């Protein structure tokens, strides 16, 4: 199967004046197109760091990273931004919606930066809201929504540009079980429609939605399990 993500010997160090911490220590990681992969591990094992590197938010200190066959490890920030647009969508545990923008405006944001015309933006935002069942909340601001609703807005924002990959960092971490299940169902539905999903989670239940589980410990991949 075609590899959409391929990372080899990825290392990431965080340096302060006194200390050098290796968050990732030679991670090899691959994801096939249309796959749903869950990354698990204890706190501080490097899950989020790996996800940030996969999402082109950060550069690895060492190692190679191919996204859709392009080596992106040494790309500049501007280059990474361009590559990320419309290819990768993000969903975070703390939703990361902009407080000053309403639901519609939050979802519209990636399309704005992609330079999509207004009419098309409107169609795509409305479609995304409908898909996430939040159309009735379009004029509301994030702080007026429940956690589940906020996460649905975040997912709508992640999918509105029809990205090939969605990177989700503990998407249910701040939600109750009912809302958590709803979010996971949404992600599974997106995956079944062809979107590749890489999800960081602590939850076995959430991980059970994935095709494959990768376990990280102290910055290294320890076990890989396939869900049947």
């Amino acid at each position, binding site marked *: 199967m075609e590899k959409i993500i391929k990372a080899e010997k990825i290392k990431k160090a965080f340096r302060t004046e006194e200390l050098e911490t290796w968050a990732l220590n030679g991670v090899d990681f691959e994801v096939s197109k249309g796959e749903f992969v869950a990354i698990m591990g204890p706190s501080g094992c490097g899950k*989020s*760091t790996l996800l*940030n590197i996969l*999402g082109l*938010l*950060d550069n690895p200190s060492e190692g190679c990273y191919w996204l859709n066959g392009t080596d992106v490890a040494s790309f500049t*920030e*501007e280059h990474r*931004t*361009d590559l*990320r*647009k*419309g290819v990768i969508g*993000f969903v*975070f545990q*703390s939703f*990361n*919606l*902009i*407080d*000053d923008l309403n639901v519609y405006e939050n979802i519209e*944001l*990636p399309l704005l*930066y*992609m330079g999509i015309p207004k009419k098309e933006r409107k169609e795509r935002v409305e479609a995304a809201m409908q898909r996430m069942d939040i159309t009735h909340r379009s004029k509301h*601001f994030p*702080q*007026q929504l429940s956690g589940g609703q906020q996460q649905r807005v975040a997912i709508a*924002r992640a999918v509105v*540009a029809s990205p090939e990959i969605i990177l989700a960092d503990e998407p249910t971490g701040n939600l109750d079980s009912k809302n958590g299940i709803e979010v996971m169902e949404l992600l599974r539905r997106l995956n079944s429609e062809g979107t590749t999903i890489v999800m960081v989670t602590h939850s076995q239940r959430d991980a059970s939605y994935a095709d494959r589980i990768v376990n990280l410990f102290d910055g290294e991949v320890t076990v890989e399990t396939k869900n049947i």
Partner: protein
Amino acid sequence: MLIHYIKMAVRQLLKYKFHTIVSALCMAVGLTINGYIGTAVKCQFTDGTLVSIPKRSGETTTYAEYKDIVDKGIEGVCRFHTHDYTHEKLLAYSDNVEELYPIRARGISNDFFRNHYDPRGSLVLSGRDSIGEDEILIARQLAERIFGEKDPIGRTLTLLNDTLSNDDSRKEKFYSGKSYRIAGVCENIYTNGHQWQIYVPMHDKGECAMVYGYLKDGYSVNEVRKAIDEVEWRSADDGKPYGMIAIQQNYDRDFWLSMVLLVLFSLLIFATGLINFMKFVIQMFYSRQRELALRKCLGSNNRGLYMLLANEVFIMLTVSFFLSCITSELSVMYLDFLNVDIFDEIPMRMIIPVQLHTAIMAFIVSLAAIFLPIMKLRRASMRGALMRHRQGNKMRNFMIGLQFAVAIISFSFLALALQTEKAECGRHEEQLSEEELERILVISNLQHNWEQIRPLLEKLPIVEEFTYSSNENMRKSALNAQKLYVNNDSIYADIIAYGDPSYFKFFKLPVDGKIVPPDANNYVYIDRKLHQALLVGGTYDGTVEMENGLKYSVAGVIDKVLTRDWDNVYVSGHGYVSTAGSIFFVSPLGLTFYYRIKDGVSMKEAHKAFEKEFYKFVPKTFEIEIPTLKEINDDLNTVNRMMKHLAYIMAFISLLVVVLSIYSTISLDATTKQKEIAIRKINGARKGDILRRFVVPYATVYSVTFLIVYPLLACFYISVTNGNGRMISTGMIFAIGAMIYFGIMALIAVVTWHKIKMIMGINPAEVIRRE
């Protein structure tokens, strides 16, 4: 608990060190400017409506009559005071040491300082409010010269009439031979631009320049006039009745305008500082919602939150106040260093209380202002809070707009004023080189035995050439204008000077015509501009008639256009008029004498030779100033340079405050909006998008402010300068506008670029991880 609040406030302020310093500094600058200008303007105005009470006949009021008026009183008038005319022909000696010093004195009524608001008066008298019959006040500089010490309080000074000249002065004789005890010393005594060296109590027969008083509350000048008419006033000398009238003292339009502009300007700078200060405090408050929520969870009430903010405001304002004391001291020292005579000297002890009052007012305003966000926090619904946050941006934008307006106003006014073309104006001495100016000695207004000294100087072998005129120096020519008649047409002309026609040869001013001797009767010279104006009617016959009916022959036409440095000139009975040219009257009398020293003679030798002749007729204790024409020119240019310099400083300060304020706002934005920027970057925002996100709101506010303020200012400026001979073209207004628009924008861009670049380059992963 209070200690906890103070501790938290200090920590919070230290957390945002840079913003705290910038806000405190902006506030300090506002307090300094407001304190200084507020004090200066206060000194210009008295604390009440001043009325003058002259005799209806136009005769002067004697001091005895003044005392009679005070004794009887006038209904509706209080705080009477008076002073007499200048006494320039007095000599003095100290403590029976009969070394004579020439002095300039002013006689004042006993109640002068008690009833007349004079900021320096209270200092002069060291807490007392009047001087006794045998007491005088002396300027420190004169005290040092005569007594060799700064505070000769208690020592005596004997006044004499000017016995060196044979001029029998009526005014000075009252003081001659009388000894006075020195009651107080002051730095300088200035009144209406004149420096007085001594204040002396008025003599009963002395003439009051004017009788002054203040209107009591609730009285009009008309009621006072009625009250005056109801009393029978009789002369102290001959018992003859006389009438009086009360006249309300009004400052002229230009004076009011300049004072209003100064106050407005200082208030705008103060408002800028205050806005920046409040913006910082409130923005800090909004960025601490989590902490405030936690505090509320832990039992804090709104009073506690208020105290938290109030302590921050108090600490910052205290720092600002002390900073403003330092900046004021530095400003006063700087103005002293520049020796700028814009306002009379203003001591720090007068400025500090104004600053303190302003700071207290700012504290009260701030306390009221911080009450608002706390009340809103308590009553807030989620949606309401969000909507208010958006409105808050509008308010913030308005405040930033106001700050921009200050910078635009100050710079535009400066630029417009500098670019305004003055009426064509030539200077008398501009044909002479710098070297030639250095070789001309100038003697002005000498009175002591001048008639004996003058011929000796003219005969000195080192003197190559000399001339004289009535004007005090080159720039002060054309102090007034004259209405001329050419047949039945009238025209106004500036009077350049009265003097010897050799003046033109001396100053290399080409004259088309004949040079007549100085004692030739009824001859004038006119400049080319006036000549052309006279020719227009076709009736000009080589003579001009003055308003008083005297006819003058025009002996020649001066090729250069010689006129005043300012544009409108006041002609008694005609108001401010614009003039067609200028005129020089031939006269044997002079006030200023010019001596060209022969080449090869050192100027030091020339000075010595001049002084030698002087001291044959005046005591050594007389200081004789014989500057060169170049020194006079440099002095005059220095004043112009200083005025421009000061205008630049004021404009620079306002711009500095605005730039610092904008920098502080952007910097605080960069700190508080990191998460938003990170989210935007995660969602595809490039550096350019982030740049636009920061720049567009500021650029919009700036552009809107500019489009509102600059045209209004330009219209105002044109209306103010219209009709006084100053002109500025529409093209120049546009050019200056464009220059200021892009100039201020570029300056702000340069200063804030580092911060914007930093926020553009933030690592979103880092920010999200921190969150």
